[in-house]
C-alpha cells in the first residue's frame, strides 16, 4: 500500500494542465495561450506577430499554444487552479472582470498614448483598472435585401438616421404583407449558445431602457431586468414571434437562410459581412431605436497578462509590439473584424472614413454598449440567456424576469457583490 501511495502522489504531481508548458518563464522565454486553434487565419495572424517579435530582439522568446475555442475557458480555469497560467493569454471581453476579480490577471501598465488610441470597447477594465486590450472588435447589424425594403416603401436606415420603433414596426408589417418571404426578420433564435442570446438580444433590452444589471452600483438587477422597460422588451419580443415576423426557433444558420431567400432581414454581425456579398442587393443597417437609442454589443477577444507571470516586463513588451497598426490590420483584412484604432482603419482598404466597410466601425463608435463589466457576468449571462429563451418560448414574462432578477440578486449577495 505504501508503494501504491507513492505512485498516486507521483501521478498527482506530474499531472500538467492540458496544453503543457507552465507560466512564468525561465530567463526570457514565456508562453502565450490563444483560443483560436482551428481558426486558420486568426492563428496565422497571431503566429506572425510572435515570430516577428522573436526575430526583432533576443531578450525574450514567446511560444504559442493554441486551444480550440470550446475547450479554452475550461483549460484556463484548470490552469489557474493549479497556478500554471501562461504569461500571456487572450480572454473573451465580458469575462475579464470575473478573471480579474479571481486574481488570474495582472494589471496592464500600457503607455497611456497607446491606450488612448483604442476603441473603448476593446479595453477590458474593472474598477477603473485596465486588464486587457483587444486587437479588434465585432459588431451586430441588421442585414436586409434592399429590394424588399423598396417594395415595402421603407427607407434604408443609416448610422446617422436609424429607424424609430414605429418605422421598424411599419417595415415589418409591410414586408409581411408582400408575402414574398417565409419570415420578415430572422433573429437567429436557432443558435442555442447562451452567449449569443446575451450578446445578440440584450442590446434590444438595453435599447428599451432596461439592462442586465444596474450599472451604477453593480449590486442588483431588480428594477432594470424586471422593471417596466424590461417588460416592454419582453412583450415586444413575444409580439414579433406571435405575429410571425420572426421564427420562434430559426434554422441553425440564420444567415444562410437569409442568403437563400427565406427571410427579408436577418440579425447578425460583422462576421457575416463577406457572406452578404452573395446577396445581390444586400445592405446592412443599425438596429432600430426602441426608446433609449439603438444599441449593439461590444467587446471581443482581448489580451492580458496573468498574475503569476514571472516576466511581466517581457510580456508587456510583447503586447506593445503587437499593437502596431500593421499587425492589427491583418485581423481586419483577413477576418473582416473591426479595426481597434483609426491608424489601423487607415491602413486597411475599405475601412477609411466613408469607405465601403466603414459602417461597422462608425456603428460601433456610436452605439456599442459593452456587456456589463462585472465579475458576476458568467452568472448574469446564463441567467439572462435562459430567461430570454423561456420568454421566446412563450412563457409568462413577468414571472420569468422576476425570477431571473432575484436569482442574480441572490448570487450577488452570496458573493458580497464581488467586491463592488
Amino acid at each position, binding site marked *: 500500500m505504501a508503494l*501504491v501511495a507513492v505512485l*498516486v502522489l507521483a501521478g498527482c504531481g506530474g499531472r500538467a494542465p492540458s496544453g503543457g508548458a507552465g507560466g512564468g518563464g525561465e530567463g526570457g522565454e514565456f508562453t502565450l495561450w490563444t483560443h483560436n486553434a482551428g481558426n486558420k487565419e486568426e492563428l496565422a495572424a497571431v503566429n506572425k506577430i510572435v515570430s516577428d517579435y522573436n526575430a526583432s530582439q533576443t531578450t525574450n522568446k514567446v511560444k504559442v499554444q493554441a486551444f480550440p475555442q470550446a475547450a479554452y475557458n475550461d483549460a484556463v*480555469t484548470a490552469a*489557474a487552479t493549479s497556478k500554471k497560467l501562461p504569461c500571456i493569454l487572450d480572454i473573451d471581453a465580458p469575462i475579464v472582470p*470575473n*478573471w480579474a*476579480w*479571481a*486574481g*488570474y490577471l495582472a494589471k496592464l501598465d500600457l503607455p497611456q498614448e497607446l491606450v488612448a488610441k483604442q476603441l473603448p470597447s476593446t479595453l477590458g477594465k474593472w474598477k477603473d483598472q485596465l486588464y486587457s486590450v483587444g486587437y479588434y472588435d465585432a459588431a451586430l447589424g441588421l442585414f436586409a435585401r434592399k429590394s424588399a425594403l423598396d417594395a415595402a416603401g421603407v427607407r434604408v436606415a443609416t448610422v446617422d438616421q436609424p429607424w424609430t420603433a414605429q418605422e421598424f414596426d411599419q417595415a415589418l408589417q409591410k414586408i409581411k404583407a408582400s408575402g414574398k418571404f417565409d419570415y420578415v426578420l430572422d433573429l437567429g433564435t436557432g443558435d*442555442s449558445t*447562451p452567449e449569443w442570446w446575451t450578446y445578440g438580444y440584450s442590446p434590444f433590452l438595453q435599447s428599451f431602457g432596461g439592462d442586465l444589471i444596474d450599472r451604477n452600483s453593480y449590486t442588483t438587477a431588480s428594477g432594470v431586468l424586471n422593471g417596466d422597460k424590461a417588460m416592454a422588451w419582453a412583450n415586444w419580443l413575444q409580439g414579433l414571434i406571435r405575429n410571425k415576423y420572426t421564427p*420562434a*426557433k430559426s434554422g441553425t444558420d440564420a444567415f444562410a437562410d437569409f442568403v437563400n431567400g427565406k427571410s427579408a432581414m436577418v440579425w447578425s454581425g460583422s462576421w457575416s459581412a463577406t457572406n452578404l456579398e452573395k446577396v445581390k442587393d444586400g445592405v446592412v443597417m443599425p438596429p432600430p431605436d426602441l426608446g433609449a437609442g439603438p444599441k449593439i454589443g461590444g467587446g471581443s477577444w482581448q489580451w492580458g497578462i496573468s498574475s503569476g507571470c514571472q516576466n511581466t516586463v517581457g510580456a508587456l513588451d510583447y503586447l506593445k509590439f503587437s499593437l502596431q497598426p500593421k499587425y492589427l490590420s491583418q485581423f481586419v483584412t483577413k477576418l473582416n473584424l473591426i479595426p481597434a484604432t483609426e491608424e489601423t482603419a487607415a491602413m486597411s482598404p475599405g475601412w477609411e472614413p466613408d469607405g465601403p466597410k466603414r459602417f461597422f466601425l462608425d456603428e460601433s463608435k456610436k452605439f456599442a454598449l459593452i456587456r456589463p463589466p462585472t465579475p458576476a457576468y*458568467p*452568472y448574469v449571462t*446564463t*441567467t439572462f440567456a*435562459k430567461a430570454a*429563451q*423561456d420568454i421566446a*418560448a*412563450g*412563457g409568462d414574462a413577468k414571472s420569468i424576469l422576476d*425570477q431571473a432578477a432575484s436569482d442574480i440578486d441572490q*448570487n450577488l449577495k*452570496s*458573493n458580497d457583490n464581488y467586491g463592488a
Partner: protein
Amino acid sequence: MAVTQEVPPKGGLRTSTRATTRKPAGRGHETLMGTLMVSPAMLLLIVFFFIPVGLCFALAFTNARLISPEPATLVGLENFQRLFQDPLFWRSLRNTVYFAVVVVPLQAGFALVLALLVNAKIRGINFFRTLYFVPVVTSIVVVSILWKFMYQSDGLVNNMLQTLTFNVVQGTDWLSNPTAAMPAIMFMSIWQAVGFHMVIWLSGLQTIPGELYEAAELDGADKWQQFRYVTWPGLKATRTFILVTITIAALSLFAQINVMTQGGPLDATSTVVFQAVRVGYGQQETAYASTISLVFFVLVLTVSLVQRYLTRERG
C-alpha cells in the same frame, strides 16, 4: 433445479481437523494474491470515484465556487434550504421522475418483446439482433444531433406522420412544444437503448433449459401459458437486474437534454443531472451543484434499495 441428497461425509470430524490444520498457510497466500489482483481496480476506484464523490458531498456544506479569490467556507445547511425552495429543482425532479416512470416499463417491456422475437431459431436471426443493437453502439450525442434534425417541424418525423396518416396528423415542432418535448426525447432514448436490454433479456432467456419447454408442450400448454409459467419465472434474476439498471440510467438523463433542448422549452425537459451540470459549470456555483448531486444520489440510492427489497428472494 435437480434435487440432491445431502449425505454427511464419513468421519466428518476428522475431515474438519485436517481442513483446519491445512487452511492457514493456503488461506493467507490466497488472500494476498486476491488483494494484489484487486488493488489496481480498487486504487482507480478510490482515486477517481470515491474521493471525488466524498469531496463533492463535503462541498455541499460550503459556499465553494468554481472561480473565486476567496477560499470556500462552511455554511451548513444553507444550500439545502435554497434547494428545497428552488422551483427549478422541483420541476427538474418532476421531469426526471416522469421520464423514469414511463421509460422503465416501456423500455424493459419492448426489449423483452424484441428478445423473444430474436430468440427464434430461424436463419438470418443474427442480422436482426445486430440491427437492433446498432443504435446502442452509436454515441448518444450523435444520435441526439440526428434526432434533433428529425424532430424539426419540417423534419423526417413529421413528414412520416403526414405520409402514414394521409395528412390527418400534422405533427408539431416537437422540441419547442412544452408538452411534446419530453415524450419526443423518451421515444428517442428508448429507441437508442432498447437493444442493450434486449441482449440482456436474451441471455436470460437462453439460460432457461429447453427441456422445460418440451415438458410444458407435452402437458398441453399454449404459447402464452408457456411464457407465463416457464419463461417469466425463469427470468427472475434478469428481471431484477434490468429493472435496477434501467431505473438508474433513466434517472440520470443528461446527454440528450444537453444536446437537444438545454432544459427547455420552459423547463419541460430539465432534469436533475442537467440542472446540476448547468449550475456547477455554467453558473460556476460548485457548492450548490454538489448539493443537487448529493440529494440526487440519496434519491437514486433509495429507489434502488426499495427495488431490491421488493424483488428480493423470498423464503
